[in-house]
């Protein structure tokens, strides 16, 4: 427990708890979000100050990232607007290699003088550290792209949508929840625009404009007499899209089991809040699960988190090599398992791909934060481990000479390092629907939405909860369950994967807050899948009396 985290955690109300401190920049008026920011030509000149200063001080490589991060958050509870926050964070981060060693410094003074001082600091750090360096940095080659740009393909820029329209939408969702039996509802919209300019001594000047959006709510139902409460959270996903995600298009909705509505690339928040209120009430009297082995039918907005923890993280090369040993941990998926070419990560139906280009995903960018053009690659093919996720300074350690393009820093004042790309499970090739899958299960549980999650530091043993649970008996949903969590081992779990629905059910799960590194940084990432069945998984009952 870090004291500052504790204080933040303890000192905030339920609504504010949904807003992590890392997203806070400085507050600005709404109209200032539309101001254009520094011109690309000026940014190029400023970046060159850093690159030239670094070279003149003996650095063999340097990159500069000028970042302008615009965020807007709207928080409401019940019929009240709690806060509308607009923030802007602007500055430059400079990374250098001197004497074979990394150095990094940042400043929010984006002037020739400020940049020179920060660059000097970065080089001084590199030189001080080079005295204990035993493994000089080796960078994989990268193309010089010249002056290029990339932009998230959005239809509606959140910055151009009036705050009143966003407030109205959240309050309508809250009202729908309250009308349908909720006692409390908190809702929020997180909207992010990263304007990033990257330049390096390898000859690239890359201007990118990246958009992300996340609508959330938490509905609470209370049994006052007993002093009990249950919550149900949104079934939306954070997306790499514009405000068009909030349109609630009928064509993007799917009917799930037991009256659930599931959403693809368009979200109906009012409808979801209506269903959530009814389900939160139902949870108060739902049957407590009997512990034992069940076949699990996992919905994409649930399975995404399991993919994230049990596939995404263990296949990060920096973890495999031990760079994250002091924080997130290492990995069971060791180098020898990759080199063998025969390690069965999952059953034959399991194909897992890494992708930094998928449209609508949180990880999609044109170039990563060290100027590498992004791509898609296999991690697990027909159940066999085929690759890791690696960046320029580590990919040579798996005998490859091209970075995978998954380097990221959460802000201009954080150093970039290897971060998880979108990691997704390919849908089944044969036509197969959720209802057909449920029909085939004798004793099982259908789990939708994200819940509690925990996994060990080498990614063997995990435990996951969910948002809603339904018991399946002889091919039919027979009722809601509570107190459900499943525990398994990564390799055992993925080898128990027997069937995957087809691509008509494929959806993206995502999170804004994948944490890694020291100081800890957050990264946004999506995970796609279709509803998937896993056989004979151990389910525990988490009900307790205190």
């Amino acid at each position, binding site marked *: *427990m*870090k*004291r500052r985290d*504790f*204080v933040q*955690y*303890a*000192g905030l*109300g*339920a609504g504010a708890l949904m807003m992590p401190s890392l997203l806070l920049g*400085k*507050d*600005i*008026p709404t109209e200032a979000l539309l101001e254009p920011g520094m011109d690309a030509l000026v940014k190029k000149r400023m970046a060159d100050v850093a690159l030239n200063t670094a070279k003149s001080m003996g650095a063999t490589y340097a990159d500069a990232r000028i970042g302008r991060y615009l965020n807007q958050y709207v928080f409401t509870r019940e019929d009240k*607007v709690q806060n509308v926050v607009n923030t802007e964070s602007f500055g430059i981060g400079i990374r250098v290699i001197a004497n074979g060693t*990394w150095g*990094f*410094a*940042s400043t*929010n003074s984006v002037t020739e003088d400020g940049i020179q001082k920060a660059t000097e600091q970065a080089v001084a*750090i590199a030189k*001080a*550290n080079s005295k*204990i*360096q*035993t*493994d000089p940095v080796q960078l994989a080659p990268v193309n010089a792209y010249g002056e290029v740009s990339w932009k998230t393909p959005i239809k509606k820029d959140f910055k151009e949508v009036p705050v009143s329209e966003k407030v109205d939408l959240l309050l309508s969702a809250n009202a729908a929840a309250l009308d349908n039996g909720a*006692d409390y509802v908190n809702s929020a919209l997180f909207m992010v625009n990263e304007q990033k300019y990257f330049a390096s001594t390898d000859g690239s000047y890359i201007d990118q404009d990246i958009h992300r959006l996340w609508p959330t709510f938490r509905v609470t139902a*209370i049994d*006052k*007499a*007993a*002093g*009990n*409460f249950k919550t149900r959270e949104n079934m939306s996903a954070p997306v790499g899209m514009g405000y068009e995600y909030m349109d609630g298009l009928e064509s993007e909705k799917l009917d799930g089991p037991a009256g659930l509505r599931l959403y693809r690339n368009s979200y109906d928040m009012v409808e979801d809040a209506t269903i959530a209120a009814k389900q939160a009430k139902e949870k108060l009297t739902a049957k407590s699960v009997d512990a034992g082995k069940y076949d699990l039918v996992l919905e994409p907005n649930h399975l995404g988190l399991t993919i994230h923890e049990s596939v995404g993280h263990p296949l990060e090369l920096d973890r495999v*090599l*031990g*760079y*994250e*040993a*002091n924080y997130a*941990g290492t990995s069971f998926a060791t180098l020898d398992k990759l080199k063998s070419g025969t390690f069965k990560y999952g059953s034959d139906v399991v194909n897992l791909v890494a992708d930094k280009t998928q449209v609508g995903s949180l990880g999609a960018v044109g170039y990563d934060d060290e100027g590498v053009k992004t791509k898609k690659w296999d991690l697990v093919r027909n159940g066999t481990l085929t690759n890791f996720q690696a960046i320029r300074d580590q990919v040579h350690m798996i005998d490859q000479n091209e970075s995978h393009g998954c380097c990221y820093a959460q802000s201009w004042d954080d150093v970039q390092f290897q971060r998880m790309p979108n990691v997704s499970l390919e849908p089944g090739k044969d036509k197969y629907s959720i209802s057909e899958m449920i029909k085939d299960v004798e004793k099982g549980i259908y789990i939708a939405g994200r819940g*509690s999650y*925990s996994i*060990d*530091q*080498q990614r*063997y*043993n995990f*435990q996951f*909860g969910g948002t809603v649970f339904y018991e399946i008996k002889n091919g039919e949903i027979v009722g809601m369950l509570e*107190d459900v969590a499943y*525990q398994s081992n990564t390799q055992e779990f993925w080898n128990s994967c027997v069937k995957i629905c087809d691509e008509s059910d494929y959806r993206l799960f995502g999170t804004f807050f994948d944490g890694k590194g*020291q*100081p800890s940084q957050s990264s946004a990432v999506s995970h796609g899948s279709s509803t998937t069945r896993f056989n004979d998984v*151990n389910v*525990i009952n988490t*009900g*307790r009396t*205190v």
Partner: protein
Amino acid sequence: MAIYTKEEARKILEKALSFSKADTCEINLSGTNSGNIRYARNTVSTSGYSSNQSLAVQASFGKKSGTATIDEFDDASLEKVVRRAEELANLSPENPEFMEPLGPQMYDESISYSEATANITPEYRAEVAKSGIEPAAAQDVTAAGFFNDSAGFSAMINSKGLFAYNKSTDTDFTVTMRTNDGTGSGWVSRDFNDVTKFDASAASKTAIEKAVLSREAKAIEPGKYTVILEPAAASDLLRNMFGSLDARSADEGRSFMSAADGANKLGQKIVDERVNIWSDPLNPEVPTSTWNGEGQPLKKTSWLENGVVKNLAYDRFWAKEKGVDPVPFPSNVIMAGGDQSLEELIKGTKKGILVTRLWYIRSVDPQTLLYTGLTRDGTFYIENGQIKYPVKNFRFNESPIIMLNNLETLGKQVRIDGNLIPYMKIRDFTFTSLSDAV
């Protein structure tokens, strides 16, 4: 960036306030310099330095507020930021929960700043890394660690006459030592306001010893065990209990602190009577600022006394609604301990498990404060007063409330992450499965 003195900060704040035309105005000024070093695979990996300062103005007309921020402090910039906040306030909806700024307050002088910490250099950070890497390499062990230091100040002023100032420093250090055969892992964490209290070599040595001792762990059946939790392990679980101190959530029926029929647990005995927990910004081991961001003075406050809930935190709005005095959230946590050292606790244990730390703790049920997570970096079986052998890591499903009701013995206090937490021996701690992770 300079760490402004009280008078320098006051001068900037008074100047900014002089531009205000709003009904009320509150201005916060803060700045931080921080540096870090990271190492892994027995060599340095990434390091960095950052410097930030900002001034935030909250202007209010009636119940309408606006906030604007700037990082330049010349007169023109100060006037611009005040005008911006006022414009935004005029455009904002009324906040029915708006509270006017506080009037002048009396604050204790804080003791959270150390000049030695503020003067840390890149060379010092490299030495910290070296003092772990060299002994590790000599013992077939690989070091991965992180050291971070920061120095900063914060100050505030408002149109009701309040002025507050504090400067503070902090250091955080963690290191993980793994044996090169991949079967042992040890870890330590140290944090101090004053870096002269920090001994990097001694800390690294402890982690190396744990790594070597924990090699080739045996698997034992999960189940209910007596455990000795080191303060790092206990602290992680207790953190979650403190998240439930908010009176409003309790009164609204959506917290562990809610009771039947709309009541809360204030005055109820919820854990063993030997549990006493308080906060104190002037404790010399864990000093903090003596005021919070709203300008409320922070004083020694009791939270659990003889196992009874003594206070819940009331923000100013909720306190007004309930007709009670506001109680600010704590800035640190101090739990009373006992006299026994870790060695003595082990000596007095017939059968049990020593837990170095817990990892990946997540809420399973907010109603009962049930949490899951795993042991990590040094888990040992104790028999007849001695550590017998290392055991494989466990997953637990446990509530800090159940844990503190199953208290056997409290040991000595240790500073961990800015709090003072004792070693504790707990019976019937629930481990639900085994993990192969080292």
